[in-house]
């Protein structure tokens, strides 16, 4: 029959053209319904269909499915097609299954069986079809089912190259979708690595991708690939012959393979073996040389391929960061690209240069291109390229060129794209502070910045200006002068009003003698802006006025008038109203000396890490992360302080200063640590505990952080967390150190602490936000305070999430903060001790435990532990010198709890008896529980 011949499938063509001709959605639906009924009729159990018909109907179903309609039948027919021997029928079957297949389990077993049959068949085309299908479905079950078959195909000697290629890619896909369910036998490692040496370039290319993914999972296991990769690379790059079968792309030999190999090498540090290393350097050198050669073709593909290899090589050079000659050459090469006509090239060049600028070897070389980069900033048409230019300028800035660069950036800011303005403002602010030689210059720049950028100046920027001014006596009068001048401009941004208001309030007296800026003029000038400002600024200005009352008593009545004015005294804004009323009363009641004390000049701010850097990192977590390791600035050190985040400039008054500061801090924290009711598992703390190495200190304990004030509280193969604590009465300052143990950056890093149940009322945690990225092998710090409100018994929960190699990781465990951390040792003589001991006789106050020794009974160890636990170890009190006695006080916010203990070792029985008495119920019991398995 002519209609049955070939694979024309006329019915399908007719159906599709019918659908295409449908005028409306309804018409289409009608046609589809009709067709579905027809197919159902054909597929009815009692009818037999030949392969061609099945294929045709399955095809129609597929088409209907792709139009967006549900298909709930025909699976069986599709699966039947899989066992057909005709290529087209098999192909359609696989197509249907990979497109429509979802979790229908009983079908899945059947499909897996069919795929397995095909994988074991002799026909390479069938094997490839099966591999394609596995990769397309690529779910967990597939990964489990074929965890052995596919690698076997990959490494066996008699599979065809095309099949190997598919197998490698299929494996890669399974590895990406469900890495944990794919278990690769370690015996195969060497053979997989050896695929890099495969004669067929296609197989090698596919294998590099796979190996790259596997390396990211277990770098050590695949270390052997460095050697092979380098030799393969050198064979391609340095060999004189150009016959690479079909893999020469517009005169560039195997560009894809080269790029992938170079990327693979970026997973490891520079090779240790000098011969390999020199070979690699030779390759890189050759690549850089080739870039200098004239183009072999005018076609854009040729230059693209060549540049792709070149850029990847430069990335590798930057990654290795050890060959200064290569780095400088790379930099020069990029310099040439900066003037290239091709926008993409310029972008890439700037991007790579950013990285180069952070390397000590090439920093100087990068600086040579400053002129060009600035030009790019001015003349470039593409926004993204300009943005890169800004990044590069920021990265290449140092003391020698800071003035120029800041000036250029300021000029550019006026015309900059709105989207990058805020970031630029931050960068300018940071650079000008970091490299300021003269703080007058810094102030000039900042005020100019606030004037130009206005809305794009984030809070942190002007907080920082205030901090700098407050902390440096020498610039205060200058600051007051220029702030006053800046305020005289007819249109003045609100941020400028805030800065000027604050500075004049503090240091207005320094310029009051100048007839151009008498107190009255200052005040009038400030007040002329008052009505244009938002409530927060008004609050700040009210504080300034109050400061004026102190500085210039002669204008006191003017200010009182203003405070008394209805718009303030009866303002609808509670904050303004409160300030107005309080300040008015203060000015009326207090005598000048009291006023002078209350309205004293602000003390210098404690030095700490600039909030600007924190802000910049929040904005751009991936870029500029290198800067963390540099000392941040001459005026700021990284000395820790309990609260980060700027002190609020508005809280100029000492009166409500403290409270507001805490509010502000709470705000900052809550921004970065979102409230979440994460589910945590109690058990994880135990399971992880088994992973951790025992610490080398003589004091051994299975409870972390119990006896020591610094400890490693968590460790696995990715990350290590250390803690350092310092007690100040009822508040503990802690520092957590998160160390990245891997070769990759951990991104989207975030930590959360949960106080569950009673703990909420017993503890108050205040943790600083942290950076979201930890660079490879680097560590970041998070500090914070934990206040003890009441005695507590549970442990806070901690939850850490991050992406390692794009795989989300989550760690839940109990944060080992025990009550004894708030225990302060107390010294007393024996009379005193026994007096107190006898006072605490009630049954709830005492707890006694008798337990066998777990460690050797050494006097000094015990003593060290008891002291580490927090209480004193008093000698000469107990008659038996082997016994330990001591005391301590638990500081909580609400009360102080006294505790006494007595530990009596019995060396013959290898037992201890521990008696603890405490002035509060339950505390003694808790301590006894904590200590009972520690000796």
């Amino acid at each position, binding site marked *: 029959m002519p209609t049955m011949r070939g694979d024309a499938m006329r019915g399908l063509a007719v159906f599709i053209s019918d659908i295409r001709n449908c*005028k409306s959605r309804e018409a289409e639906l009608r046609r589809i*319904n009709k067709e579905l*009924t*027809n197919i*159902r*009729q054909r*597929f*009815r159990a009692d009818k037999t269909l030949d392969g061609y018909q099945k294929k045709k109907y399955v095809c129609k179903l597929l088409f209907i499915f792709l139009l967006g309609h549900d298909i*709930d039948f025909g699976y069986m027919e599709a699966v039947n097609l899989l066992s057909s021997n005709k290529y087209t029928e098999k192909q359609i079957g696989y197509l249907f299954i990979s497109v429509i297949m979802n979790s229908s389990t009983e079908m899945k077993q059947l499909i897996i069986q069919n795929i397995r049959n095909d994988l074991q068949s002799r026909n390479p085309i069938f094997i490839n079809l099966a591999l394609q299908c596995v990769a397309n479905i690529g779910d967990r079950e597939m990964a489990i089912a074929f965890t052995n078959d596919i690698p076997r195909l990959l490494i066996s000697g008699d599979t065809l190259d095309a099949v190997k290629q598919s197998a490698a890619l299929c494996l890669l896909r399974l590895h990406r979708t469900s890495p944990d369910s794919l278990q690769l036998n370690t015996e195969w490692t060497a053979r997989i690595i050896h695929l890099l040496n495969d004669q067929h370039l296609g197989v090698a290319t596919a294998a590099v991708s796979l190996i790259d993914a596997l390396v990211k999972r277990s770098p050590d296991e695949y270390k052997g690939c460095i050697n092979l990769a380098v030799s393969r690379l050198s064979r391609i790059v340095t060999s004189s012959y150009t016959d690479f079968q079909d893999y020469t792309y517009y005169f560039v030999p195997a560009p894809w393979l080269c790029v992938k190999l170079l990327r693979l090498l970026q997973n490891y540090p520079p090779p240790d073996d000098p011969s390999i290393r020199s070979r690699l350097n030779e390759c890189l050198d050759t690549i850089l040389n080739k870039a200098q050669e004239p183009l072999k073709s005018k076609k854009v593909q040729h230059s693209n391929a060549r540049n792709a290899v070149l850029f990847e090589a430069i990335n590798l050079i930057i990654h290795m960061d050890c060959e200064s000659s290569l780095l400088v050459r790379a930099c020069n090469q990029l310099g040439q690209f900066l003037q290239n006509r091709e926008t993409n090239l310029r972008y890439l060049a700037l991007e790579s240069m950013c990285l180069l600028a952070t390397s000590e070897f090439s920093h100087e070389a990068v600086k040579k291109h400053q002129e060009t980069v600035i030009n790019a900033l001015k003349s470039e048409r593409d926004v993204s390229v300009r943005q890169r230019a800004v990044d590069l300028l920021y990265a290449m800035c140092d003391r020698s060129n800071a003035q120029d660069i800041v000036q250029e950036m300021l000029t550019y800011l006026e015309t900059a794209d709105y989207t990058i303005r805020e970031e630029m403002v931050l960068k300018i602010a940071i650079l000008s502070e970091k490299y300021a030689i003269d703080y007058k210059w810094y102030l000039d720049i900042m005020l100019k910045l606030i004037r130009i950028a206005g809305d794009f100046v984030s809070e942190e920027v002007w907080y920082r200006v205030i901090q700098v001014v407050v902390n440096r006596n020498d610039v205060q009068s200058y600051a007051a002068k220029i702030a006053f001048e800046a305020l005289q401009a007819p249109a003045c941004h609100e941020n400028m009003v805030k800065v000027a208001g604050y500075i004049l309030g503090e240091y207005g007296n320094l310029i009051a003698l100048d007839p151009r800026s008498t107190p009255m003029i200052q005040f009038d000038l400030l007040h002329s802006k008052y009505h244009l400002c938002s409530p927060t600024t008004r609050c700040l200005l009210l504080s300034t006025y109050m400061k004026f009352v102190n500085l210039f008593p002669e204008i006191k009545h003017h200010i009182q008038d203003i405070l008394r004015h209805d718009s303030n005294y009866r303002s609808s804004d509670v904050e303004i109203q409160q300030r107005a009323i309080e300040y008015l009363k203060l000015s009326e009641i207090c005598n000048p000396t009291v006023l002078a004390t209350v309205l004293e000049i602000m003390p210098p701010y404690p030095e700490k890490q600039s909030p600007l850097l924190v802000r910049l990192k929040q904005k751009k977590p991936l870029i500029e992360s290198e800067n963390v390791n540099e000392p941040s600035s001459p005026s700021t050190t990284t000395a820790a302080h309990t609260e980060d985040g700027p002190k609020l400039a508005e809280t100029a008054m000492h009166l409500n200063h403290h409270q507001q500061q805490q509010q502000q801090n709470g705000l900052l924290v809550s921004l970065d640590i979102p409230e979440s009711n994460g589910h945590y598992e109690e058990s994880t703390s135990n399971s992880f505990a088994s992973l951790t190495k025992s610490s080398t200190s003589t004091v051994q304990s299975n409870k972390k952080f119990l006896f020591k004030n610094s400890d490693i509280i968590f460790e696995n193969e990715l990350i290590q967390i250390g803690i350092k604590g310092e007690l100040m009465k009822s508040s503990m300052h802690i520092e957590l150190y998160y160390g990245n143990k891997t070769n990759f950056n951990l991104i989207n890093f975030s930590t959360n602490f949960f106080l569950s149940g009673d703990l909420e009322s017993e503890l108050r945690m205040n943790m600083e936000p942290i950076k979201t990225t930890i660079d490879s092998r680097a560590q970041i710090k998070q500090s914070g305070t934990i206040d003890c409100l009441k005695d507590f018994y549970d442990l806070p929960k901690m939850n850490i999430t991050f992406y390692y190699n794009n795989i989300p990781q989550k760690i839940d465990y109990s944060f080992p903060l025990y009550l004894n951390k708030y225990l302060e040792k107390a010294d007393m003589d024996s009379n005193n001790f026994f007096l107190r001991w006898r006072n605490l006789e009630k049954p709830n106050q005492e707890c006694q435990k008798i337990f066998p020794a777990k460690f050797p009974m050494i006097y000094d160890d015990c003593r060290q532990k008891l002291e580490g636990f927090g209480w004193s170890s008093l000698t000469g009190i107990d008659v038996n010198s082997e016994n330990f006695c001591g005391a301590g006080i638990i500081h909580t916010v609400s009360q102080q709890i006294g505790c006494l203990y007595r530990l009596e070792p019995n060396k013959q029985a290898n037992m201890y008896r521990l008696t603890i008495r405490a002035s509060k119920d339950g505390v003694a019991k808790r301590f006894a529980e904590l200590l009972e398995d520690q000796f």
Partner: protein
Amino acid sequence: MIGGVFIYNHKGEVLISRVYRDDIGRNAVDAFRVNVIHARQQSRFPVVNIARTSFFYTKRSNIWLCAVAKQNINAAMVFEFLGKMIDIMQSYFGKISEENIKNNFVLIYELLDEILDFGYPQNSDTGVLKSFITQQGVRPITREEQTNVTSAVTGQIGWRREGIKYRRNELFLDVIESVNLLMSQQGQVLSTHVAGRVVMKSYLSGMPECKFGINDKITVDNRTKNPLDSTNINNNSTTNGSTNPSTTTTKTAIAIDDCQFHQCVKLSKFESEHSISFIPPDGEFELMRYRTTKDISLPFRVIPLVREIGRTKMEVKVVVKSNFKPTLIGQKIEIRIPTPSNTCDVQLLCMKGKAKYKSSDNAIVWKMKRMGGMKESQLSAEIELLPNDKKKWNRPPISMNFEVPFAPSGFKVRYLKVFEHKLNYSDSDTVKWVRYIGKSGLYETRS
């Protein structure tokens, strides 16, 4: 206020675009196309708000009609306007279709200029519009005609011009009702109502005044209480409270839930005397619209019987009974029985009419040309299914279409009187035709 009116074809191409206000930009046209016509999910709302702009739309055959407004506008007014616009276009060039719209686009723009002014709806009466927007092209308008137009637009009776003369004074009255019903399997009426329209076609000379009487409960009550004819302008109706004793109602009176009149009806008279009097426009118009929910005589009853036999077979038996006077005949009867989505084959057997399985609609359609009153007919079907355990069939209701020559609500025209004082033709000289048509609305029985 309506900011603009757009007309699209089914592909979303703009056929007509008329913007009345500056707040509607060009992009509004595209916004509607992208978000409604080409939306992945079919939009189910008649009003869509995109970027603070409201789009009110209806679809007629393949044509989308959309009014746009930036302000907070009375939505009911907009839809009334859109409906009117469709009526006008239909009366000018018949069926609304892409081709008709393309062929008449000058006319449509002209109409749009006339019926909306700066977004405020103006006179949209077809008769009036036709007097100055014609399809004959430009012709010089005489002074007389001009004054006619002006007086029609500005005068008190905007819907009728003066000086109409007919040799034969004739009028046609159609009472068209559509019955809506939802009935349970057991034959219990779950909800029912009748939406009726009285459409009048008048060919009367001069400025005749008409009085129209119906068997509405209130008017009937009024008359029985007041032995004088209701046309007699009597004044005591205002004192008539609502405390009418129900004993006086006659059987034939019906309770109208709500009704709506053409603008020509003098509402003040209706309110005070419950009489419907009006000066009709020339030609066809809808005199009143009403709705009743009580005492509806259902013309047909559908009795379904569905039996599932195993997973692959189903038996459906449907009996239809006509429930009206044997002398009357129902027409265009069509019963639509939905079938499950996994149907593969259907065998049908019916005593009367023709039955067919329409796979494109997933339904069995049973048609009978006519059926007398008090008759019964039966259809049985055997449906073969493809086993499928994923979705349970939710048994949509069986729906029915028909036409019967009586008003199922019991609505009756009692009289229609015509008075023309100036031209001196009396009520008895006019020829009057009254016709009742009962149609099916959504007439469904659960199976």
